[in-house]
């Protein structure tokens, strides 16, 4: 076994708000605080994509990082960059765009395009101080 992890960083920015449509405004504000404010706020999201596997003996690559970059730009950046996650994306029309849910959605978008024998993990920074990882 000589598994190696490779990483690619990408970034996008977006507006969002956190709220549960089944709750009234008071409960949303109690649970989500300022994140529930109606006119949206936003973040610079920093994304780290980790692919783990055995380097290909012919190339020495676990995965060509240029191809991984192109994949993230096509599947993630084009969907979410400079968008309102609640209003402009199919993925979050009925899903609260928390960092947790965004990381799970990004994993789901990338997973079909990465070789089955490789492991995939995404780490998403919502701010420089708040970040999540999926799968945990």
């Amino acid at each position, binding site marked *: 076994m000589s598994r190696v992890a490779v990483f690619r960083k990408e970034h996008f920015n*977006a507006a*969002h708000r956190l709220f549960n449509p089944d709750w009234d405004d008071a409960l949303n504000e109690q649970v989500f605080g300022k994140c529930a404010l109606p006119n*949206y*706020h936003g973040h610079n999201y920093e994304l780290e994509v980790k692919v783990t596997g055995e380097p290909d003996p012919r190339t020495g690559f676990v995965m060509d990082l240029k191809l991984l970059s192109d994949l993230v730009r096509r599947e993630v950046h084009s969907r979410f960059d400079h968008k309102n996650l609640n209003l*402009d994306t199919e993925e979050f029309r009925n899903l609260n765009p928390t960092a947790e849910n965004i990381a799970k959605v990004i994993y789901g978008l990338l997973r079909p395009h990465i070789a089955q024998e490789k492991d995939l993990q995404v780490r998403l920074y919502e701010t420089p101080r708040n970040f999540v990882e999926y799968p945990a």
Partner: protein
Amino acid sequence: MVYLTRNEHFNAAHKLYNPAWTREKNDEVFGKCANENWHGHNYDLFVTVKGAPDPDTGFVFDVKKLSDIIKRHVIEKLDHRNLNVDVDFMRDKFCSTENLAMGIWNELLPHLPARVKLHCIKLYETPRIYVEYFGE
């Protein structure tokens, strides 16, 4: 003369849009930043004041007080807000980082004691883009 800097942060939604122009012209000039439903950023703010250290304290200015002034007069108005919609001092202005830095300068200036001078507002819109305003 010593320069003292306090770093604070906030996040917000905005868009770049000139209402006197057509949608096409806005898209041409502002690109994705003109997205109708907003996008957003984690802003990083550096406020620099200058002065001579007080002989009794050694401080140019008590940095905790500087932090409180920034939080009360700037961060509370901006954090988790929509810059175009929610912020009194940005109303009827383009919400560019340039104009926001100038707006922050004007908000802070009346609240600083006479013995320190406001020197610079340095505002990061993303980790890769920032502006500086020196009040001139």
